[in-house]
Protein backbone atom coordinates (compact mmCIF):
# COMPACT_ATOMS: atom_id res chain seq x y z
CA UNK A 1 0.00 0.00 0.00
CA UNK A 2 1.47 3.38 -0.94
CA UNK A 3 2.26 5.45 2.12
CA UNK A 4 1.72 8.99 0.88
CA UNK A 5 -1.73 8.14 -0.39
CA UNK A 6 -5.19 9.61 0.23
CA UNK A 7 -5.87 12.86 2.03
CA UNK A 8 -6.03 12.45 5.79
CA UNK A 9 -9.53 12.61 7.26
CA UNK A 10 -8.40 14.80 10.13
CA UNK A 11 -11.83 15.14 11.71
CA UNK A 12 -12.25 11.37 11.85
CA UNK A 13 -8.84 11.08 13.53
CA UNK A 14 -9.66 13.89 15.93
CA UNK A 15 -12.88 12.12 16.86
CA UNK A 16 -11.00 8.90 17.59
CA UNK A 17 -8.54 10.89 19.68
CA UNK A 18 -11.33 12.72 21.52
CA UNK A 19 -9.96 16.11 20.49
CA UNK A 20 -12.20 18.96 19.43
CA UNK A 21 -10.49 20.92 16.64
CA UNK A 22 -11.40 24.35 15.28
CA UNK A 23 -11.55 24.48 11.50
CA UNK A 24 -8.27 26.42 11.42
CA UNK A 25 -6.63 23.75 13.55
CA UNK A 26 -8.05 21.03 11.34
CA UNK A 27 -6.54 22.67 8.25
CA UNK A 28 -3.19 23.25 9.94
CA UNK A 29 -2.84 19.75 11.34
CA UNK A 30 -4.02 18.16 8.12
CA UNK A 31 -1.27 19.96 6.20
CA UNK A 32 1.40 19.29 8.81
CA UNK A 33 0.52 15.63 9.19
CA UNK A 34 0.55 15.27 5.42
CA UNK A 35 4.10 16.61 5.24
CA UNK A 36 5.29 14.45 8.11
CA UNK A 37 3.73 11.31 6.67
CA UNK A 38 5.25 12.04 3.25
CA UNK A 39 8.63 12.01 4.95
CA UNK A 40 7.86 8.51 6.25
CA UNK A 41 8.37 7.30 2.67
CA UNK A 42 12.01 6.95 3.73
CA UNK A 43 10.98 3.57 5.09
CA UNK A 44 10.05 2.44 1.57
CA UNK A 45 13.77 2.22 0.78
CA UNK A 46 14.14 -0.80 3.02
CA UNK A 47 13.07 -4.37 2.46
CA UNK A 48 11.01 -4.88 5.59
CA UNK A 49 8.86 -7.75 4.38
CA UNK A 50 10.43 -10.62 6.24
CA UNK A 51 11.56 -8.73 9.32
CA UNK A 52 10.09 -9.46 12.75
CA UNK A 53 8.49 -6.39 14.32
CA UNK A 54 10.04 -5.15 17.59
CA UNK A 55 7.53 -3.98 20.15
CA UNK A 56 10.07 -3.69 22.93
CA UNK A 57 13.77 -2.91 23.18
CA UNK A 58 14.43 -5.55 25.81
CA UNK A 59 13.04 -9.11 25.74
CA UNK A 60 10.87 -9.01 28.86
CA UNK A 61 7.63 -10.95 28.51
CA UNK A 62 4.57 -11.94 30.48
CA UNK A 63 5.59 -10.29 33.71
CA UNK A 64 3.05 -11.49 36.24
CA UNK A 65 2.61 -11.38 39.97
CA UNK A 66 0.74 -13.54 42.43
CA UNK A 67 -2.98 -12.81 42.46
CA UNK A 68 -2.97 -11.42 45.99
CA UNK A 69 -4.50 -8.15 47.01
CA UNK A 70 -2.15 -5.57 48.46
CA UNK A 71 -2.49 -2.03 49.78
CA UNK A 72 -2.88 0.81 47.31
CA UNK A 73 -4.30 4.33 47.50
CA UNK A 74 -6.93 5.06 50.11
CA UNK A 75 -10.17 6.37 48.70
CA UNK A 76 -9.25 9.90 49.77
CA UNK A 77 -5.85 9.68 48.12
CA UNK A 78 -7.42 8.40 44.93
CA UNK A 79 -9.93 11.26 44.92
CA UNK A 80 -7.43 13.91 45.95
CA UNK A 81 -7.02 15.35 42.44
CA UNK A 82 -10.58 14.84 41.25
CA UNK A 83 -11.96 17.83 39.36
CA UNK A 84 -15.34 16.90 40.81
CA UNK A 85 -16.21 14.29 43.34
CA UNK A 86 -19.23 13.40 45.41
CA UNK A 87 -20.14 10.62 47.83
CA UNK A 88 -16.62 9.25 47.61
CA UNK A 89 -16.76 8.89 43.82
CA UNK A 90 -15.57 10.76 40.73
CA UNK A 91 -18.43 12.79 39.34
CA UNK A 92 -18.88 13.12 35.57
CA UNK A 93 -21.63 14.15 33.12
CA UNK A 94 -24.32 11.57 32.56
CA UNK A 95 -23.15 8.69 30.35
CA UNK A 96 -26.30 6.68 29.90
CA UNK A 97 -29.62 8.28 29.12
Amino acid at each position, binding site marked *: *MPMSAPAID*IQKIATLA*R*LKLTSDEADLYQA*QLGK*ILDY*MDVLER*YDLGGVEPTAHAMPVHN*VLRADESRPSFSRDEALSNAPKSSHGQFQIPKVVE
Partner: protein
Amino acid sequence: MSLANETIASLRRRLAKREITSSDIVRDIASAIESKNDTIGAYLSWDVDAAISEANKADTNSPLGGVPIAIKDNINVTGQPCTCGSKILAENYRAPYDATSIKQLRSAGAVPFGRLNMDEFAMGSSTENSALGVTRNPWDTDRIPGGSSGGSASSVASATAIAALGSDTGGSIRQPAALCGVVGLKPTYGRVSRYGLVAFASSLDQIGTLTKTVEDSALLLNHLCGHDPRDSTSLNEAVPDFTSALGRDIKGLRIGLPKEYFISGIHPAVAASAQAAIRQLESLGAHIEEISLPHTDAGVSTYYILAPAEASANLARFDGVRYGHRTASASDILDHYFSSRAEGFGPEVKRRILLGTYVLSSGYYDAYYLKAQRARTLIRRDFEQAFEKVDVIISPTAPSPAHKMGELKNNPLQAYLEDVFTIPANLAGLPAMSVPSGFAEEEGRKLPVGIQIIGKSLDEMTMIRVAHAFEQVSGLAHLSAP
Protein backbone atom coordinates in the same frame (compact mmCIF):
# COMPACT_ATOMS: atom_id res chain seq x y z
CA MET B 1 31.26 30.82 46.86
CA SER B 2 27.72 29.56 46.62
CA LEU B 3 27.26 25.89 47.36
CA ALA B 4 25.03 25.79 44.28
CA ASN B 5 28.21 25.81 42.18
CA GLU B 6 29.46 22.54 43.63
CA THR B 7 29.14 18.94 42.53
CA ILE B 8 27.47 16.04 44.32
CA ALA B 9 30.91 14.56 45.01
CA SER B 10 32.37 17.71 46.60
CA LEU B 11 29.24 18.39 48.66
CA ARG B 12 29.20 14.82 49.96
CA ARG B 13 32.79 15.21 51.17
CA ARG B 14 31.94 18.44 52.97
CA LEU B 15 28.69 17.09 54.41
CA ALA B 16 30.50 14.02 55.73
CA LYS B 17 33.06 16.27 57.44
CA ARG B 18 30.19 18.32 58.90
CA GLU B 19 31.64 21.46 57.27
CA ILE B 20 28.20 22.28 55.88
CA THR B 21 24.65 21.13 56.42
CA SER B 22 22.09 20.04 53.88
CA SER B 23 19.92 23.05 54.60
CA ASP B 24 22.93 25.30 53.86
CA ILE B 25 22.92 23.82 50.37
CA VAL B 26 19.16 24.22 49.95
CA ARG B 27 19.42 27.87 51.00
CA ASP B 28 22.24 28.60 48.54
CA ILE B 29 20.29 26.94 45.74
CA ALA B 30 17.17 28.91 46.68
CA SER B 31 19.19 32.16 46.48
CA ALA B 32 20.58 31.19 43.12
CA ILE B 33 17.09 30.38 41.84
CA GLU B 34 15.72 33.67 43.13
CA SER B 35 18.44 35.63 41.35
CA LYS B 36 18.56 33.73 38.07
CA ASN B 37 15.23 32.00 37.44
CA ASP B 38 13.50 35.10 36.06
CA THR B 39 15.99 35.08 33.21
CA ILE B 40 16.81 31.39 32.77
CA GLY B 41 13.37 30.02 33.69
CA ALA B 42 14.59 26.49 34.46
CA TYR B 43 12.15 26.05 37.36
CA LEU B 44 8.36 26.03 37.20
CA SER B 45 8.10 25.85 40.99
CA TRP B 46 10.21 25.21 44.07
CA ASP B 47 9.20 24.68 47.69
CA VAL B 48 12.01 25.90 49.94
CA ASP B 49 10.24 25.14 53.24
CA ALA B 50 9.52 21.53 52.28
CA ALA B 51 13.12 21.08 51.12
CA ILE B 52 14.61 22.60 54.29
CA SER B 53 12.38 20.40 56.41
CA GLU B 54 13.59 17.32 54.51
CA ALA B 55 17.18 18.56 54.53
CA ASN B 56 17.11 18.88 58.31
CA LYS B 57 16.15 15.22 58.57
CA ALA B 58 18.64 14.00 55.94
CA ASP B 59 20.96 11.24 57.02
CA THR B 60 24.41 12.47 56.05
CA ASN B 61 25.76 8.95 56.50
CA SER B 62 23.76 7.82 53.47
CA PRO B 63 25.54 7.78 50.11
CA LEU B 64 23.69 10.85 48.75
CA GLY B 65 22.74 12.12 52.20
CA GLY B 66 21.76 15.77 52.22
CA VAL B 67 22.21 16.48 48.52
CA PRO B 68 19.30 18.34 46.86
CA ILE B 69 18.37 17.10 43.39
CA ALA B 70 16.07 19.04 41.05
CA ILE B 71 13.35 17.04 39.31
CA LYS B 72 11.89 17.28 35.80
CA ASP B 73 8.19 18.09 36.12
CA ASN B 74 7.01 14.72 34.77
CA ILE B 75 8.30 12.64 37.67
CA ASN B 76 5.90 12.32 40.60
CA VAL B 77 7.12 13.53 44.01
CA THR B 78 4.52 13.28 46.78
CA GLY B 79 2.68 16.50 47.48
CA GLN B 80 4.38 18.42 44.69
CA PRO B 81 3.04 19.56 41.32
CA CYS B 82 3.67 17.36 38.27
CA THR B 83 2.59 19.58 35.43
CA CYS B 84 4.46 17.86 32.57
CA GLY B 85 4.75 21.40 31.18
CA SER B 86 1.04 21.27 30.35
CA LYS B 87 -2.07 23.29 31.17
CA ILE B 88 -3.92 20.00 31.49
CA LEU B 89 -2.12 19.25 34.77
CA ALA B 90 -1.15 22.74 35.86
CA GLU B 91 -4.25 23.74 37.77
CA ASN B 92 -3.96 21.86 41.03
CA TYR B 93 -2.61 18.34 40.51
CA ARG B 94 -0.51 17.24 43.47
CA ALA B 95 1.28 13.92 43.25
CA PRO B 96 -0.22 11.38 45.66
CA TYR B 97 2.88 9.18 45.48
CA ASP B 98 6.63 9.10 44.88
CA ALA B 99 8.03 7.68 41.67
CA THR B 100 10.24 4.68 42.43
CA SER B 101 13.31 6.63 41.31
CA ILE B 102 12.43 9.32 43.86
CA LYS B 103 11.87 6.70 46.58
CA GLN B 104 15.30 5.28 45.84
CA LEU B 105 16.98 8.70 45.86
CA ARG B 106 15.32 9.43 49.21
CA SER B 107 16.53 6.09 50.62
CA ALA B 108 20.02 7.19 49.65
CA GLY B 109 19.46 10.44 51.56
CA ALA B 110 18.95 12.83 48.65
CA VAL B 111 16.43 15.68 48.90
CA PRO B 112 14.19 16.28 45.86
CA PHE B 113 13.99 20.06 45.48
CA GLY B 114 12.28 21.96 42.68
CA ARG B 115 10.19 21.20 39.60
CA LEU B 116 11.86 21.79 36.24
CA ASN B 117 10.37 23.09 33.01
CA MET B 118 10.06 20.81 30.00
CA ASP B 119 8.46 20.49 26.57
CA GLU B 120 4.83 19.55 27.17
CA PHE B 121 4.59 15.82 27.92
CA ALA B 122 8.24 15.52 26.87
CA MET B 123 7.35 16.20 23.25
CA GLY B 124 9.96 18.48 21.77
CA SER B 125 13.65 19.31 21.58
CA SER B 126 13.68 22.93 22.63
CA THR B 127 11.44 23.32 25.73
CA GLU B 128 9.56 25.88 23.61
CA ASN B 129 6.60 23.51 23.69
CA SER B 130 6.10 24.11 27.40
CA ALA B 131 2.70 25.68 28.03
CA LEU B 132 3.83 27.09 31.34
CA GLY B 133 7.06 29.00 30.94
CA VAL B 134 10.09 29.91 28.89
CA THR B 135 13.49 28.37 29.58
CA ARG B 136 16.63 29.90 28.11
CA ASN B 137 20.10 28.61 27.43
CA PRO B 138 22.41 30.01 30.14
CA TRP B 139 25.20 30.40 27.55
CA ASP B 140 23.06 32.70 25.37
CA THR B 141 19.66 33.63 26.67
CA ASP B 142 18.34 34.26 23.13
CA ARG B 143 18.76 30.56 22.46
CA ILE B 144 16.99 27.39 23.41
CA PRO B 145 18.34 25.09 26.11
CA GLY B 146 17.25 22.06 24.09
CA GLY B 147 14.55 19.66 25.18
CA SER B 148 12.54 18.13 26.40
CA SER B 149 14.60 18.21 29.63
CA GLY B 150 15.54 21.86 29.01
CA GLY B 151 14.85 22.94 32.59
CA SER B 152 17.02 20.08 33.90
CA ALA B 153 19.98 20.94 31.66
CA SER B 154 19.78 24.71 32.13
CA SER B 155 19.41 24.48 35.92
CA VAL B 156 22.63 22.47 36.17
CA ALA B 157 24.41 24.69 33.62
CA SER B 158 23.40 27.89 35.45
CA ALA B 159 24.30 26.52 38.90
CA THR B 160 20.73 26.81 40.09
CA ALA B 161 20.80 23.04 40.76
CA ILE B 162 23.50 20.64 41.91
CA ALA B 163 22.17 17.95 39.60
CA ALA B 164 18.83 17.05 38.05
CA LEU B 165 16.72 14.16 36.92
CA GLY B 166 15.42 14.20 33.38
CA SER B 167 13.71 11.77 31.01
CA ASP B 168 14.83 10.65 27.56
CA THR B 169 12.60 9.14 24.88
CA GLY B 170 14.37 10.27 21.68
CA GLY B 171 17.26 12.28 23.12
CA SER B 172 15.56 14.50 25.69
CA ILE B 173 18.40 14.23 28.22
CA ARG B 174 21.39 14.02 25.88
CA GLN B 175 20.50 16.82 23.46
CA PRO B 176 19.83 19.54 26.09
CA ALA B 177 22.97 18.35 27.92
CA ALA B 178 25.01 18.97 24.75
CA LEU B 179 23.40 22.37 24.12
CA CYS B 180 23.96 23.50 27.72
CA GLY B 181 27.44 22.06 28.27
CA VAL B 182 26.59 19.50 30.93
CA VAL B 183 26.71 15.71 31.21
CA GLY B 184 23.50 13.88 30.28
CA LEU B 185 23.05 10.15 30.78
CA LYS B 186 20.31 7.78 29.60
CA PRO B 187 20.61 4.24 30.97
CA THR B 188 19.80 0.96 29.22
CA TYR B 189 16.04 0.67 28.77
CA GLY B 190 14.65 -1.07 31.83
CA ARG B 191 17.52 -0.18 34.20
CA VAL B 192 15.57 2.61 35.92
CA SER B 193 11.97 2.08 36.90
CA ARG B 194 9.41 4.13 34.98
CA TYR B 195 6.88 3.87 37.80
CA GLY B 196 5.91 7.44 38.60
CA LEU B 197 7.28 8.89 35.36
CA VAL B 198 4.36 10.22 33.35
CA ALA B 199 4.46 8.02 30.26
CA PHE B 200 5.06 9.47 26.81
CA ALA B 201 6.24 6.43 24.82
CA SER B 202 6.42 3.40 27.05
CA SER B 203 8.87 1.35 25.00
CA LEU B 204 11.31 4.27 24.71
CA ASP B 205 11.10 6.40 27.90
CA GLN B 206 13.87 6.27 30.51
CA ILE B 207 14.68 8.45 33.49
CA GLY B 208 18.29 9.64 33.61
CA THR B 209 20.64 12.29 34.92
CA LEU B 210 21.85 15.79 34.09
CA THR B 211 25.03 16.59 36.05
CA LYS B 212 28.10 18.83 36.08
CA THR B 213 30.52 15.92 35.86
CA VAL B 214 30.69 12.28 34.77
CA GLU B 215 31.45 11.31 38.37
CA ASP B 216 28.17 12.84 39.56
CA SER B 217 26.21 10.88 36.95
CA ALA B 218 27.75 7.62 38.23
CA LEU B 219 26.99 8.60 41.84
CA LEU B 220 23.32 9.18 40.98
CA LEU B 221 22.97 6.21 38.67
CA ASN B 222 23.99 3.85 41.47
CA HIS B 223 20.79 4.77 43.28
CA LEU B 224 18.38 5.06 40.36
CA CYS B 225 18.79 1.58 38.92
CA GLY B 226 17.22 -1.64 40.07
CA HIS B 227 14.36 -4.01 39.44
CA ASP B 228 10.93 -2.66 40.35
CA PRO B 229 7.95 -5.00 40.52
CA ARG B 230 5.73 -1.97 39.86
CA ASP B 231 7.25 -1.53 36.37
CA SER B 232 6.74 -4.61 34.25
CA THR B 233 9.42 -3.44 31.82
CA SER B 234 11.98 -3.09 34.58
CA LEU B 235 14.97 -5.42 34.28
CA ASN B 236 16.03 -7.92 36.88
CA GLU B 237 19.74 -7.17 36.55
CA ALA B 238 22.37 -6.60 39.22
CA VAL B 239 23.39 -2.98 39.64
CA PRO B 240 27.17 -2.59 39.60
CA ASP B 241 28.96 0.25 41.39
CA PHE B 242 29.23 2.62 38.45
CA THR B 243 31.85 4.73 40.23
CA SER B 244 34.33 1.86 39.79
CA ALA B 245 34.34 2.78 36.09
CA LEU B 246 35.92 6.16 36.91
CA GLY B 247 39.65 6.79 36.66
CA ARG B 248 40.33 3.72 34.55
CA ASP B 249 42.43 3.82 31.42
CA ILE B 250 41.00 3.02 28.01
CA LYS B 251 44.07 1.44 26.37
CA GLY B 252 43.03 -1.07 23.77
CA LEU B 253 39.33 -0.21 24.06
CA ARG B 254 37.66 -0.32 20.65
CA ILE B 255 35.69 2.78 19.70
CA GLY B 256 33.40 2.71 16.67
CA LEU B 257 32.60 5.77 14.55
CA PRO B 258 29.46 5.20 12.50
CA LYS B 259 30.03 6.69 9.09
CA GLU B 260 26.33 7.50 8.74
CA TYR B 261 26.61 9.94 11.66
CA PHE B 262 29.59 11.90 10.40
CA ILE B 263 27.78 13.53 7.53
CA SER B 264 28.21 16.76 5.65
CA GLY B 265 25.15 18.52 7.06
CA ILE B 266 26.48 18.98 10.57
CA HIS B 267 27.71 22.31 11.93
CA PRO B 268 31.49 22.74 11.43
CA ALA B 269 32.14 23.30 15.13
CA VAL B 270 30.28 20.09 15.99
CA ALA B 271 32.36 18.17 13.44
CA ALA B 272 35.62 19.78 14.57
CA SER B 273 35.08 19.09 18.26
CA ALA B 274 34.08 15.49 17.51
CA GLN B 275 37.27 15.01 15.51
CA ALA B 276 39.34 16.57 18.28
CA ALA B 277 37.68 14.30 20.83
CA ILE B 278 38.45 11.25 18.71
CA ARG B 279 42.12 12.25 18.50
CA GLN B 280 42.25 12.70 22.26
CA LEU B 281 40.73 9.27 22.81
CA GLU B 282 43.29 7.80 20.42
CA SER B 283 46.08 9.47 22.36
CA LEU B 284 44.74 7.72 25.46
CA GLY B 285 45.29 4.38 23.73
CA ALA B 286 41.84 3.59 22.38
CA HIS B 287 41.52 1.97 18.95
CA ILE B 288 39.29 3.91 16.60
CA GLU B 289 37.45 2.06 13.88
CA GLU B 290 34.94 3.18 11.29
CA ILE B 291 31.74 1.16 11.46
CA SER B 292 28.46 1.22 9.63
CA LEU B 293 24.93 1.45 11.02
CA PRO B 294 23.24 1.08 7.64
CA HIS B 295 19.65 1.73 8.74
CA THR B 296 20.41 5.04 10.48
CA ASP B 297 18.35 6.87 7.86
CA ALA B 298 15.24 5.04 9.00
CA GLY B 299 15.57 6.25 12.60
CA VAL B 300 13.63 9.51 12.55
CA SER B 301 10.68 8.15 10.61
CA THR B 302 10.58 4.98 12.73
CA TYR B 303 10.60 7.03 15.91
CA TYR B 304 8.03 9.55 14.74
CA ILE B 305 5.64 6.74 13.95
CA LEU B 306 6.19 4.64 17.10
CA ALA B 307 6.49 7.38 19.71
CA PRO B 308 3.34 9.31 18.76
CA ALA B 309 1.47 6.01 18.45
CA GLU B 310 2.41 5.05 22.00
CA ALA B 311 1.74 8.60 23.17
CA SER B 312 -1.76 8.59 21.69
CA ALA B 313 -2.52 5.61 23.93
CA ASN B 314 -0.71 6.97 27.01
CA LEU B 315 -2.38 10.36 26.86
CA ALA B 316 -5.87 8.91 26.61
CA ARG B 317 -5.94 8.93 30.40
CA PHE B 318 -6.19 12.73 30.41
CA ASP B 319 -9.95 12.79 30.22
CA GLY B 320 -10.82 15.29 32.95
CA VAL B 321 -12.31 12.56 35.14
CA ARG B 322 -9.79 11.55 37.80
CA TYR B 323 -7.34 14.44 37.58
CA GLY B 324 -6.40 17.34 35.40
CA HIS B 325 -8.30 19.98 33.55
CA ARG B 326 -12.04 19.59 33.09
CA THR B 327 -13.99 21.85 30.75
CA ALA B 328 -16.31 24.27 32.52
CA SER B 329 -19.54 23.29 30.80
CA ALA B 330 -19.94 20.16 28.75
CA SER B 331 -23.19 19.28 27.00
CA ASP B 332 -22.62 15.56 27.45
CA ILE B 333 -19.89 13.06 28.27
CA LEU B 334 -18.36 13.13 24.80
CA ASP B 335 -18.25 16.90 24.77
CA HIS B 336 -16.63 16.66 28.21
CA TYR B 337 -13.81 14.59 26.76
CA PHE B 338 -13.45 16.56 23.52
CA SER B 339 -13.38 19.94 25.18
CA SER B 340 -11.34 19.11 28.26
CA ARG B 341 -8.60 17.64 26.09
CA ALA B 342 -8.77 20.39 23.46
CA GLU B 343 -8.50 23.07 26.14
CA GLY B 344 -5.76 21.34 28.08
CA PHE B 345 -3.30 20.11 25.42
CA GLY B 346 -0.93 22.33 23.44
CA PRO B 347 -0.38 22.16 19.66
CA GLU B 348 2.61 19.80 19.56
CA VAL B 349 0.85 17.35 21.84
CA LYS B 350 -2.29 17.49 19.68
CA ARG B 351 -0.18 17.04 16.55
CA ARG B 352 1.48 13.91 17.95
CA ILE B 353 -1.74 12.46 19.33
CA LEU B 354 -3.33 12.91 15.90
CA LEU B 355 -0.31 11.42 14.15
CA GLY B 356 -0.24 8.49 16.54
CA THR B 357 -3.97 7.89 16.24
CA TYR B 358 -3.69 7.95 12.45
CA VAL B 359 -0.85 5.43 12.22
CA LEU B 360 -2.68 3.03 14.52
CA SER B 361 -6.04 3.41 12.86
CA SER B 362 -7.75 0.73 10.85
CA GLY B 363 -6.37 0.59 7.33
CA TYR B 364 -3.11 2.34 8.19
CA TYR B 365 -1.70 0.16 10.99
CA ASP B 366 0.25 -2.14 8.62
CA ALA B 367 1.47 0.64 6.36
CA TYR B 368 2.93 2.69 9.18
CA TYR B 369 3.04 1.20 12.67
CA LEU B 370 3.95 -2.36 11.75
CA LYS B 371 6.43 -1.14 9.15
CA ALA B 372 8.09 1.06 11.78
CA GLN B 373 8.31 -1.86 14.20
CA ARG B 374 10.09 -3.88 11.55
CA ALA B 375 12.48 -1.01 10.84
CA ARG B 376 13.13 -0.87 14.58
CA THR B 377 14.34 -4.49 14.46
CA LEU B 378 16.83 -3.61 11.71
CA ILE B 379 18.13 -0.63 13.66
CA ARG B 380 18.64 -2.83 16.72
CA ARG B 381 20.46 -5.43 14.63
CA ASP B 382 22.80 -2.74 13.21
CA PHE B 383 23.98 -2.06 16.77
CA GLU B 384 24.22 -5.74 17.71
CA GLN B 385 26.46 -6.33 14.71
CA ALA B 386 28.56 -3.25 15.36
CA PHE B 387 29.09 -4.21 19.00
CA GLU B 388 30.67 -7.48 17.89
CA LYS B 389 33.58 -5.37 16.68
CA VAL B 390 33.67 -2.39 19.06
CA ASP B 391 33.09 -1.68 22.75
CA VAL B 392 31.45 1.75 22.47
CA ILE B 393 30.18 3.94 19.65
CA ILE B 394 30.84 7.66 19.47
CA SER B 395 29.11 10.39 17.50
CA PRO B 396 28.17 14.05 17.81
CA THR B 397 25.13 14.39 20.09
CA ALA B 398 23.31 17.04 18.03
CA PRO B 399 23.90 18.32 14.48
CA SER B 400 24.33 21.94 15.61
CA PRO B 401 24.70 24.10 18.70
CA ALA B 402 21.62 25.73 20.24
CA HIS B 403 19.27 27.41 17.80
CA LYS B 404 17.76 30.80 18.49
CA MET B 405 14.37 30.77 20.18
CA GLY B 406 11.57 30.57 17.64
CA GLU B 407 13.79 29.37 14.80
CA LEU B 408 12.11 25.97 14.41
CA LYS B 409 8.67 27.05 15.57
CA ASN B 410 6.72 26.65 12.34
CA ASN B 411 8.61 23.69 11.02
CA PRO B 412 7.84 20.60 13.10
CA LEU B 413 9.44 18.23 10.61
CA GLN B 414 12.72 20.18 10.64
CA ALA B 415 12.70 20.00 14.43
CA TYR B 416 12.20 16.22 14.27
CA LEU B 417 15.24 15.83 12.00
CA GLU B 418 17.48 17.36 14.69
CA ASP B 419 17.05 14.17 16.75
CA VAL B 420 18.81 12.02 14.17
CA PHE B 421 21.82 11.09 16.35
CA THR B 422 20.00 10.46 19.61
CA ILE B 423 16.91 8.53 18.47
CA PRO B 424 18.63 5.24 17.53
CA ALA B 425 19.83 4.52 21.08
CA ASN B 426 16.23 4.75 22.33
CA LEU B 427 14.96 2.50 19.54
CA ALA B 428 17.63 -0.07 20.38
CA GLY B 429 17.27 0.37 24.17
CA LEU B 430 20.97 1.12 24.61
CA PRO B 431 22.68 3.25 27.27
CA ALA B 432 23.94 6.56 25.89
CA MET B 433 25.40 9.72 27.32
CA SER B 434 26.54 13.14 26.16
CA VAL B 435 29.62 14.92 27.46
CA PRO B 436 30.81 18.43 26.53
CA SER B 437 33.32 18.30 23.67
CA GLY B 438 33.90 21.93 22.83
CA PHE B 439 32.29 25.16 21.71
CA ALA B 440 30.90 26.79 18.62
CA GLU B 441 31.17 30.52 18.25
CA GLU B 442 28.11 32.34 17.00
CA GLU B 443 27.85 36.13 16.99
CA GLY B 444 30.63 36.39 19.55
CA ARG B 445 29.02 33.94 21.99
CA LYS B 446 30.46 30.56 22.97
CA LEU B 447 27.90 27.79 22.58
CA PRO B 448 28.61 24.32 23.98
CA VAL B 449 28.55 21.19 21.82
CA GLY B 450 28.77 17.58 22.92
CA ILE B 451 29.77 14.10 21.89
CA GLN B 452 27.62 11.07 22.47
CA ILE B 453 28.92 7.75 23.76
CA ILE B 454 26.67 4.74 23.18
CA GLY B 455 27.32 1.54 25.10
CA LYS B 456 26.30 -2.07 24.70
CA SER B 457 23.10 -3.06 26.39
CA LEU B 458 23.64 -3.07 30.19
CA ASP B 459 27.24 -1.87 29.74
CA GLU B 460 26.99 1.59 31.33
CA MET B 461 30.32 0.74 32.97
CA THR B 462 32.33 0.92 29.74
CA MET B 463 30.38 3.95 28.57
CA ILE B 464 31.14 5.80 31.83
CA ARG B 465 34.75 4.67 31.71
CA VAL B 466 35.25 6.24 28.27
CA ALA B 467 33.28 9.37 29.20
CA HIS B 468 35.35 9.91 32.32
CA ALA B 469 38.68 9.28 30.60
CA PHE B 470 37.72 11.83 27.94
CA GLU B 471 36.45 14.36 30.47
CA GLN B 472 39.71 14.22 32.41
CA VAL B 473 41.79 15.25 29.37
CA SER B 474 39.29 17.49 27.60
CA GLY B 475 39.51 20.37 30.04
CA LEU B 476 35.74 20.62 29.76
CA ALA B 477 34.64 19.18 33.09
CA HIS B 478 32.21 21.23 35.17
CA LEU B 479 31.72 24.12 32.75
CA SER B 480 30.09 27.27 34.11
CA ALA B 481 27.96 29.42 31.87
CA PRO B 482 29.12 33.05 32.06
